[in-house]
């Protein structure tokens, strides 16, 4: 499902946006710095804070996200379903290192601790340009 065409949009050059819904039907749309490529059928989001997105996902596992290829401005929408959280391993370490580098550059080293890599199954991905 995720192929080479989509990978530039999963590098974190441009922010992504994501919408989740609470179990009482209240949507929440927000921007996140990066959606990470895991494999052909999965992506990951960083879990750093117990924010509204995380609360909603704990109630309702579905999410809708948009990613952007910075070279072409092609955008893709993804329908996602939360699968699991990983708190160790190569993906976790890679995310942790990048987030710490960003925090360090902004003078906030140690503040944005990565609690986990939330892994989502990609239900669909579609190009969104005219």
């Amino acid at each position, binding site marked *: 499902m995720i192929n080479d065409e989509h990978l530039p949009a999963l590098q974190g050059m441009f922010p992504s946006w994501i*919408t989740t819904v609470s179990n009482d039907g209240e949507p*929440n*749309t*927000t921007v996140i710095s990066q959606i990470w490529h895991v494999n052909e059928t999965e992506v990951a989001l960083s879990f750093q804070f117990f924010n509204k997105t995380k609360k909603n996902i704990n109630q309702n596992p579905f999410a809708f996200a948009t990613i952007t290829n910075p070279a072409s401005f092609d*955008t893709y929408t993804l329908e996602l379903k939360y699968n699991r959280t990983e708190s160790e391993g190569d993906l976790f370490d890679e995310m942790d290192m990048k987030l710490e580098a960003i925090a360090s550059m902004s003078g906030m080293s140690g503040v944005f601790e990565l609690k986990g890599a939330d892994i989502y199954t990609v239900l669909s991905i579609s190009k*969104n*340009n005219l």
Partner: protein
Amino acid sequence: MISDQVYNVLTNGIGHIGCTSSSLRPFHADPLGICCDQATNTIVCCLNKKTNELFLEHLEIGSRVSLFAAVISHEAYNLKGAVTELRDVNDNESQVCDDLREKMYGFYGELGIPKNLVDRYWLKPTDIAVVFLVDKVFVQTPGPDAGKEI
């Protein structure tokens, strides 16, 4: 409810508006211009129909929506409310979209991004207006107040 500070972000920033289906599946769309009436707490999001089909399929009068809006400084707000109207975009709203696109040329130009790429996102017909009545406003600027209702 909508302060001048929030108004400034809404009308000068980039927004994304989300909704939910009856089966609680989320969707969102990308406004190409946002108009705000502070006196009536009403927001108008101007959209392109074709690139926001999934969102529009699940939107109806009364739907709850969440509008995230942010400017380059990272100042951001989330406005929630219920849809009151789905209609054509009027001339004034169309002009707001044109003006915002011109601002985006300047913003992206400073980053070295050419106009033809900017147009792939920003130059689309705005052929539907989603109008909603705001009942909650949240700070979404990263920091200690993120998530706080104002």
